[in-house]
C-alpha cells in the first residue's frame, strides 16, 4: 500500500518537476529579453530624468518634512512611447507568473476538554523555499517575516524554538497538549556548525530576540543556560548530534502579556486583519486558565526526496478557556463567547485555512452538539490516539453560510464521560524545612497497564541551590531503580547551573521518584531580586519519552474494528514522542535584612569610634598621683573626732 502510494507520489512529483522545468526555461528567455529592454529604457529615462522637489510650506505636524519627488520628462515626445512600451511588458499575464516560493497555512483546533474547559490551538505555518545555510545572503522576503529572517542569517541559526507561557498545563485534567511548553519563557537554539563562538552568538541572539518579542530574554546568561546532551534533538532536517551547538534556557519568572502578543501577531503575513488571527484579541486571550504562544523555526524537506531544504516558521498559540466558571455553570460556548469575534474570511494569502473540532468522544452527538454542522470529517492519529475531527474549510465560501460569518457553537448535553488517563505525567516539589537544606522530589507516573518505557529526565538547577549529587536516589515501586545513563555537570558559582540528565526505565503502572538534596547558598546582597521574599524560581524539569501508543494499547477491545486488523499491534503507530514539563519550583533562600549594610557601617563606625576614643583618652590624658581619699569609716571617724575636738586620724 505504502509502496503504491510512494510510486504515485513519485509520478506526481516528476510531472510537477518537468512542468516547472519547462516553465523556468520559457521564463528565463522571456526575462532576458525584458531585462535588455529595461536597461535601454532606464538609460534613456535617466538622461532626461531630473528631479526637482518642492518643500511643503506648511509645517508638518511632526518634525518630518515631506517633499514631492518630481520626475520630469524633458523630452515629452519620447516619453509616452516609452511608457507604452513598458506598459506592454507589464500587462498582467497570469501564465508567466513566477512560481510561488513561499506558502502559508493556518489552522485552529478546538478540543472540548473533559473538565468542561475548551482548548483552542492555533497554528500558522509559513514555508519558504530558500537556503539560509549555505552562506548566501538572503535579503528578499515575501511571506516570511524579515526580522526573523535577518536573525537566522546573521546568527547562523539552524533551529530556533521559543515559547512564552502563562499558567501551567494540567496534564491530569486536560490530557496532553499538542505542543507542550513550560511556564514562563523557554528558548532553545541549534546553531550551524560554522559558528565559532557559540556563547557570544547566543548572548547576542537572546538580546535581539528580547527586542523582537518585547520579553526579558536578555536575562538569559551563562548562569541559566545549559547544553543538554540528549533531551533536545533537532526537529528539522540534518542529523546534528554535536550538542556544542545547542543552547537551552528557561526563564520561569517571565510573565506573558499583551506586549508579547502584539509582536508575535506582527509576524503573521495577514497580521490580525484577516483569517484566523482576527480571533486573537488580547482582552479575551489573557482571560484564560492557560495561554502559550510559541515560534518554531526549522529547516524541513522541500519534497519527499529531501534534496533541498526549505524553512518552516510555525507560530502556535494554545489557550484554555475556563468557560465553566465564567458562564454560570452553563456548558455551552461559541467562537464569539471565547474570542468576542466571529470569522468572516480566510487570510487571502493562506493556501489552506481550516478549523478542526475534536468530536472523537462524541460520535453520535450524545455528549454535545455542534452548530453549524459540517459533513467533513477527518481522522488523524494525534499523540498516539486516533481522533476524529469535524473540519470547516474557511477557503470555501459555503462555510460561512448566508450570514457570511462563522460562529461555531457547541452545546453540551451531558457532562458524563471520563478521560483516558495520560500515560505519562510528572510532578515536582521541594521538601524539607528550614533555610539551610532541602530536597527536590520529582515524581514520574507511568499509567500504562503493562508496558514499561524509558524516559529522559532533564533538570537544570541554578547554582544557588547546591545539589548533593551523592544523595540522588531513584526509586520505583519501593525498589531502587538504577538509571542506565546519567549526565551530570556540576555548577560553578555565578557562572553556570547544574545540569542533570538521566535515562530512567519506568515500570508499568508505577510511580518513579527521583530525589536529590540541596543546600541553599547565601547570595551577595546585589544578587537578590527586587522581591527576594517571594522566592527564587527553578525551571521545570523536562521529561522526554517515546510513549507506547493508545492505539496499540487497545488490542483487547475489539470495538467496531475488523478482526483481521487487530491481531498484531500495528507497528507504525506503536509509540509516539511526548515531552512533559513539570511545575517550576519556588524556593526560598535565606534573605538578609536589606537595610543591614548601612546599619553595619554605622555600628562598626560607632564601635571603632568608642574603642578609638578610650584609647585616645588613655594615650593623651596626663596622669598625676593624687592622695587616695580616706575611706568612709575613716571619714566618719574623723568627723566624730572633730566634734570631740580630737585631732583627726
Amino acid at each position: 500500500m505504502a509502496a503504491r502510494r510512494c510510486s504515485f507520489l513519485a509520478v506526481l512529483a516528476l510531472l510537477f518537476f518537468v512542468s516547472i522545468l519547462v516553465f523556468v526555461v520559457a521564463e528565463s528567455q522571456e526575462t532576458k529579453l525584458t531585462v535588455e529592454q529595461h536597461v535601454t529604457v532606464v538609460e534613456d529615462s535617466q538622461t532626461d530624468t531630473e528631479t526637482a522637489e518642492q518643500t511643503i510650506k506648511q509645517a508638518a505636524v511632526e518634525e518630518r518634512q515631506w517633499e514631492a519627488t518630481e520626475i520630469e520628462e524633458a523630452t515629452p515626445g519620447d516619453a509616452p512611447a516609452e511608457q507604452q512600451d513598458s506598459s506592454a511588458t507589464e500587462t498582467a499575464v497570469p501564465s508567466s507568473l513566477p512560481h510561488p516560493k513561499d506558502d502559508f497555512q493556518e489552522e485552529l483546533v478546538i478540543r472540548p476538554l473533559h473538565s468542561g474547559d475548551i482548548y483552542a490551538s492555533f497554528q500558522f505555518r509559513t514555508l519558504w523555499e530558500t537556503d539560509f545555510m549555505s552562506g548566501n545572503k538572503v535579503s528578499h522576503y515575501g511571506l516570511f517575516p524579515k526580522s526573523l529572517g535577518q536573525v537566522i542569517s546573521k546568527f547562523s541559526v539552524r533551529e530556533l524554538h521559543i515559547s512564552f507561557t502563562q499558567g501551567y498545563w494540567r496534564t491530569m485534567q486536560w490530557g496532553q497538549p499538542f505542543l507542550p511548553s513550560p511556564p514562563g519563557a523557554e528558548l532553545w537554539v541549534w546553531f550551524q556548525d560554522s559558528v565559532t563562538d557559540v556563547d557570544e552568538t547566543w548572548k547576542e541572539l537572546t538580546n535581539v530576540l528580547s527586542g523582537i518579542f518585547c520579553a526579558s530574554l536578555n536575562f538569559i546568561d551563562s548562569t541559566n543556560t545549559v547544553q543538554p546532551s540528549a533531551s533536545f534533538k533537532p526537529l528539522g532536517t540534518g542529523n546534528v548530534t554535536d550538542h556544542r551547538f545547542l543552547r537551552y534556557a528557561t526563564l520561569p519568572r517571565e510573565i506573558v502579556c499583551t506586549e508579547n502578543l502584539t509582536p508575535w501577531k506582527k509576524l503573521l503575513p495577514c497580521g490580525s486583519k484577516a483569517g484566523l488571527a482576527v480571533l486573537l484579541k488580547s482582552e479575551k486571550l489573557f482571560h484564560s486558565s492557560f495561554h502559550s504562544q510559541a515560534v518554531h523555526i526549522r529547516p524541513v524537506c522541500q519534497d519527499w526526496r529531501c534534496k533541498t531544504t526549505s524553512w518552516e516558521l510555525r507560530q502556535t498559540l494554545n489557550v484554555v478557556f475556563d468557560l465553566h466558571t465564567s458562564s454560570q455553570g452553563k456548558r455551552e460556548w461559541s467562537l464569539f463567547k471565547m474570542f468576542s469575534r466571529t470569522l468572516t474570511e480566510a487570510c487571502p494569502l493562506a493556501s489552506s485555512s481550516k478549523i478542526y473540532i475534536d468530536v472523537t468522544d462524541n460520535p453520535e452527538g450524545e455528549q454535545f452538539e455542534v452548530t453549524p454542522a459540517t459533513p467533513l470529517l477527518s481522522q488523524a492519529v494525534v499523540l498516539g490516539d486516533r481522533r476524529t475531527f469535524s473540519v470547516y474549510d474557511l477557503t470555501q465560501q459555503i462555510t460561512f453560510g448566508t450570514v457570511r460569518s462563522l460562529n461555531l457553537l457547541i452545546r453540551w448535553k451531558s457532562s458524563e464521560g471520563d478521560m483516558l488517563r495520560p500515560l505519562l505525567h510528572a510532578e515536582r516539589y521541594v521538601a524539607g524545612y528550614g533555610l539551610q537544606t532541602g530536597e527536590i522530589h520529582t515524581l514520574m507516573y507511568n499509567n500504562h497497564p503493562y508496558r514499561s518505557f524509558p524516559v529522559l529526565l532533564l533538570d537544570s538547577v541554578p547554582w544557588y541551590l547546591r545539589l548533593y549529587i551523592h544523595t540522588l536516589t531513584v526509586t520505583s515501586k519501593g525498589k531502587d531503580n538504577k538509571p542506565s545513563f546519567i549526565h551530570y555537570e556540576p555548577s560553578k558559582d555565578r557562572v553556570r547551573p547544574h545540569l542533570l540528565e538521566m535515562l530512567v526505565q519506568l515500570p508499568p503502572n508505577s510511580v518513579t521518584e527521583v530525589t536529590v538534596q540541596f543546600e541553599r547558598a547565601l547570595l551577595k546582597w546585589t544578587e537578590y531580586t527586587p522581591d527576594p521574599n517571594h522566592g527564587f524560581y527553578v525551571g521545570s524539569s523536562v521529561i522526554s519519552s517515546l510513549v507506547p501508543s493508545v492505539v496499540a494499547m487497545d488490542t483487547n477491545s475489539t470495538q467496531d474494528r475488523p478482526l483481521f486488523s487487530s491481531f498484531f499491534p500495528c507497528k507504525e503507530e506503536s509509540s509516539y514522542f511526548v515531552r512533559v514539563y513539570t511545575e517550576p519550583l519556588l524556593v526560598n533562600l535565606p534573605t538578609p535584612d536589606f537595610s543591614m549594610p548601612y546599619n553595619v557601617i554605622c555600628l562598626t563606625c560607632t564601635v571603632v569610634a568608642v574603642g578609638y576614643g578610650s584609647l585616645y583618652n588613655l594615650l593623651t590624658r596626663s596622669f598625676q598621683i593624687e592622695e587616695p581619699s580616706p575611706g568612709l569609716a575613716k571619714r566618719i571617724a574623723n568627723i566624730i573626732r572633730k566634734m570631740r575636738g580630737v585631732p583627726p586620724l
Partner: protein
Amino acid sequence: MSGISKERKRGQLAALSIAAVVIIVGVPLWWKTTETYRAWLPVSQIKELDILQLQLSADVEVVFARGTVTPEQQKKVPLTLTQDDEHIVDENTSLRYKYETKYRTATIMEEDALNQPTAAEADLSLHTLSESPCGSLVVYVIPEMSLLLPKDVDVYVGQRRTALLRIGAQMRVGRTLEQLLAHLEPRLKQVLQVMSFSHTDITAALSDRVRLSPGNKDSIADSMRAFKSSPGYEITFSLLNPDPQSHRLHWDIEGAVETYIQPLLTKLAPLANFSIDSQTLYYTMLGVNPRYDSTYGRYTLNSDSLAHVINPVEARLGSNAASSNPVLNFLLYVPDANHSPLHIHDSHKQEVISNAFHSPRWGGIMVYNVNDFHGPEAVFPVNINIDMTKVMGVFLAQLRLLLGVQSSTPPPGFLMAPCSSVGLADWELDRLMWSRTVENVATATTTITSLAQLLDQIGNIVINDNIAEQVSSAVSSLQLAVAELEAGNLGFALQYSKEAILASERAFFDPSLLHLLYFPDDQKFAIYIPLFLPMCVPILLSLLKIVSEARKKRKEKLAKKD
C-alpha cells in the same frame, strides 16, 4: 611638679603623633581605597582638536589644447599656481581651501582624443588616457571654434573627473598669458565649485559643530534631506499591499536591485557599506483617507496630509534586527481596489507626475496605481506584475537625494554629461567624499570633545583602559584625517575619518560609562560621619588645646622677660 609637666608633655606628644598618623597614613589610605580608576586620556590633544582648522587641498590640472595658446606662450606654460581661500566659520572653526593649479599643454594623444566628434566620446577617450586620482580634476581648454560643444555651451562637465572649457571670443587676438589666465579664472572657479567642493556644501557638512545662522529655507531643506554620514546604511524596499484579496502583486525586486541599485552602491562603496533587503507587507493602510475627486474620478492625497501617511505603516516596517545602521525605507504602495487610482497633489494642487514623495532622512514612498491593468469587470484577485523600471527610476532618484548626491542646477552655460548606467559620475562621488570627510571629522571632534568634557565634569566615572584606547585611536585617526585632507589625499582622509567616527562613537556609548554606581558626595559623607566625627573631634580639640597652651606659654615667657 616636674612629674606633672612631663606627663602633660607626653600627652601632647601622643596627641600630635596620632594626628600625624591620621594625616600621613589614614587620609592617603582612605583616598586610595575610595578612588575610581581613571585611565589617562590625551586631554591636551583633544583640546587642540576643539579648535579645528581644516585645510582642503585639491589638485587641478589645466590643459591647453592646440589653438588656445601661441607658441611663445607655450614656452612659459608649464607652471604651477597655488590659490588660497580662507573662511572663518566661527571662533573655533576655520576653513581653508587650497587649489594647486598646474597649467600645461595637451599631449598628442590628448589632442587626438579632443578631436572626437562629440564631447561624450572625447570625455571617454580622455579618461582612458590617464586616470586622475580621487579628488583631483582635469580641465581641458579648447579653442572657441571647437565643434565639440553646442553653440551656447561654454563648459562641458564629463562623466569622470574632466571638464571641457571653451575659451571666450574676446581672447582671440592680442593677449598675453596673464590676460588669458585672468580670463579663465572665473570660469575655472565655477567649474571647481561644481565638480569639487563648494563652500556651502562644506559649511553644511560642519553643521554638527557649528550652529549655522538660519540662512535661506532652501539650503536648510537641502542639508536636512540627506542622511547623516554613517559607516553603513540599510536599504529596505517594501511592497505595501493593503488589499491582497483583490491584487496579487509580483515584483522582481531581486533583478531590479541587481540592475539598477547595485551599480550605484558599488560605486559608493568607498563611502559606506550598504545592505539591501526587501519585504512584502499586507494589510498596511496609509494613515489618512484619500479624498475623492469627482471631476477626474480618482482619489487624491494632499501634500499637507502626507506627514500623517507613514505612522501606521512604520509600525509594521520593522527595524533591522541585525544591525544599528540607519535605515532608508522605500515603499511602493499599491492602493486598494476601492481607493484607486490614487494621486498625490503638491502644494499647488498640481498632480505630481512621478506619484512619489520622499521624507528627509527617512526614505521615499511611491504610489503605484494598477487599475489600468484590469478592467472594472475583472475577476478578483488579479495577478499583477509590477513594472520595476518605472519604480526603480523613482527610487533611484530618491536614493541619490537621500544619500546627499546633490543635483544642483548648474550655472548658465554649463552642460552636464548625461548620467551613466551607474547613475553617479566620478566627480559627484568626489564631491560627496569631500563633504562626508568634513562631516565625519566635525562629528568625531564634537563627540570626542564632549566626551572629554563630560568625563572632566563628573569626577567619579570610571574610565577603563579600553575607553582610553578608543579615545586615543579616535584622536590619532582624526589627526591623520586632517593631515591627509591637507595633503589632498581624499581617499585616505575619508578612510581615517571613518575610523575616527567609529572609535569615538564606541568610546562615547560604552556601557561601562553608564554604571549607576556614582553616589553624590553628600550621601557618601553621611555614611562616613559616624566614623569621622568621633575620630576627628578629639584630635581637633587636643590640637586646639596644645596650640592655646603654647600661646599661653609664650605670653608667660614674654611677661617674664619684661
